[in-house]
């Protein structure tokens, strides 16, 4: 990053997470500075999604500390619902509310959490849908939209709350190949607008073009991290090399 002293906006330290007997995260440290785009890659079961889900406390870490935008996420005194407004999240399976229109999906939190009036919320939601290129689909239900469009509505739902950080959990894994591009295009434009993003994904082309840093996780730990060129071309660890080789074949 540049020489301006970029304060980390996400600081996770010593994160451990157990699911019963499974030790999924074994002491992970992650710092992300403002406007940074960090890619997290790794084999399935490596803990990358769990790490992401710990950051907004969809999963409760067993130990460690997490600060996002200056908020201590694990403190019992923290209003978690308020804190989550600053952290947008996009899921692999979109998770749009099927009983609401695209507009309704975007306005729900604006109205119920932020407390905007219906008119204000509609205006902000239209602007968010415009940003993902779906202004003309505001009145459609999720079932009437393609997977790519659903995922873009899900992105609009998150960015309408003006989060400080966006978390993407395999945002294109459930999409038909021809629909992936439209979602990546939206993510690229978000990146250009200066959004801080943490992305769990195997879209190597996108990582190479847009990521500031690639983090490789395996077996509950960060094995190595660095600029995409370094991780993809000259990985220091054998495990990273093996993994990169594997996903290249696809």
């Amino acid at each position, binding site marked *: 990053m540049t020489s301006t002293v970029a304060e980390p906006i996400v600081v996770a330290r010593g994160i451990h997470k157990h699911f019963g007997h499974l030790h999924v995260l074994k002491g992970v440290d992650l710092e992300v500075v403002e406007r940074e785009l960090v890619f997290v890659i790794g084999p399935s079961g490596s803990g990358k999604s769990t790490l992401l889900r710990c950051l907004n406390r969809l999963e409760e870490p067993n130990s460690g500390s997490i600060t996002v935008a200056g908020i201590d996420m694990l403190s019992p005194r923290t209003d978690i619902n308020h804190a989550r407004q600053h952290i947008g999240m996009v899921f692999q399976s979109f998770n749009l*509310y099927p009983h609401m229109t695209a507009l309704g999906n975007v306005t*729900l939190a604006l109205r119920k959490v932020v407390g905007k009036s219906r008119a204000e919320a509609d205006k902000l939601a239209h602007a968010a849908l415009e940003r993902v290129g779906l202004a003309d689909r505001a009145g459609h239900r999720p079932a009437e939209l393609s997977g790519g469009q659903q995922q873009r509505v*899900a992105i609009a*739902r998150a960015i309408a709350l003006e989060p400080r950080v966006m978390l993407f959990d395999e945002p294109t894994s459930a999409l038909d190949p021809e629909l992936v591009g439209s979602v990546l295009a939206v993510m690229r434009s978000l990146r250009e607008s200066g959004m801080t993003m943490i992305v769990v994904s195997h879209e190597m082309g996108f990582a190479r073009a847009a990521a500031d840093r690639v983090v490789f996780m395996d077996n509950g730990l960060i094995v190595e991290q660095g600029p995409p060129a370094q991780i993809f071309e000259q990985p220091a660890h054998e495990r990273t090399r093996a993994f990169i080789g594997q996903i290249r074949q696809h």
Partner: protein
Amino acid sequence: MEEIVQSFFNAEIARAAMPIVLAGLLNTVLLSLLVVPLGVIGGLILALLAQVKSPAVRWPLMGWVDFFRAFPPLVLLILLFAGLPFAGLELGGFACVAIAFFLNTGAYYGEILRAGIESIPRGQVEAARSTGLSGMQTMTWVVLPQAVRNVLPDLLSNTLEVVKLTSLGSVVAVPELLFQARQAQSVTYNPTPIVMAAVIYFLILWPVVRLLSRLENRALAGRG
């Protein structure tokens, strides 16, 4: 033939019994308007409590639901009506029906709503919570609307049963449709009023049965 018409379809008696029977219909409607919402509210409370994972809530709740589903509603009603006065609590028939139905049908509505809530994928809750909605807001705006839609045929079917069960009120002298018809029968020495009650039950419930069939067919088609 003549005799059957005279006994069961006696026009003269029907005319005379009509006001009595219609007064009963009015009470049946009022009773239904009371016990259906009571049962739904009771069921909603049980279904929401069922989402609490703590064993301190879970086990008593399970015991409660099982108990009132296994307890015959007529026995429950008579027990309340005949038993409570011995505990120094004299409730009218109407109140006893309300309480019995709250306990009995609430347990049924509760199980239906619980199944509906549990049919909603976890991702819906996670998405809502990730935008800052509280657990209760998520339940109200995201989970319940979808849950109710998923179990609408079952809810409607149960409601049909509840309306039919209001005839149990006749046992504790609530002047609903069946009670009034029996009053009319006993003063006229003719079963025509009972036939009238049967016809009225059919006429008010048949549209609900039709609607139910359509919903069930639609649900089947939607699944295919």
